[in-house]
């Protein structure tokens, strides 16, 4: 049978390619390749060797592999050493670690001090 119903892991192995849209509510680990789009209400891990050429919308993501596309996370994005990311990143918390390769823009919610915010608004 299917095993425990609410904790089925989702794993794209190193020799698997997904082309198209991937969506759902499970956590996902990508060691292989995804081309298309990823939209999951869960945690995404792009492992070392994993390649994602798609826009990503998740709760949180750990990137250790390669990403070409925009990354939007509702909680956090972590780009680890050795990762390569080419795209724009938007999340309340974005961490780029030493040794990570990143090209693109980062958008966090920045709350400027009141005086500075007024200057910026002008």
């Amino acid at each position, binding site marked *: *049978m*299917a095993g425990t*119903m*609410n904790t*089925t*892991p*989702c*794993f*794209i*192995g*190193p*020799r*698997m*390619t*997904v*082309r*198209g*849209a*991937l*969506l*759902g*509510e*499970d*956590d*996902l680990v990508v060691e*292989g390749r995804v081309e*298309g789009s990823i939209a*999951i209400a869960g945690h995404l891990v792009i492992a070392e060797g994993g390649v994602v050429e798609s826009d990503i919308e998740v709760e949180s993501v750990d990137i250790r592999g390669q990403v070409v596309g925009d990354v939007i996370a509702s909680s956090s994005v972590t780009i680890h050493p050795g990762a390569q990311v080419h795209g724009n990143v938007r999340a309340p918390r974005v961490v780029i670690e030493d040794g990570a390769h990143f090209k693109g823009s980062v958008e966090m919610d920045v709350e400027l001090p009141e005086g500075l915010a007024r200057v910026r608004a002008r």
Partner: protein
Amino acid sequence: MAGTVIGRTIVIDGELAGDEALVVHGTIKGKIEVRQRVEVAADGVVEAVIAAPQVTVHGTVVGDIFASERADLRPESQVIGNIRAPRVLIADGAAFKGSVDMGG
């Protein structure tokens, strides 16, 4: 290594291709083409053409199955589509609608 696992809430609309075993608990629409065995678990739903050496179905498949070695429809499985494989097993309790071609 267990190969690729598609979780229960995951929906893939597109194509899955590769050289490792695949277990589907979620939903795949489109096409599956792998060079290892494919298992559609009891909670899996596949609306796709499946091409693999061995295909085992516990869940639901709507689409054609091309298995170069064997296709195995287990009890409780529901399959609508055509099957081409040298060995085809349909277990008691399986629901199947389509044609079977064992070659020769």
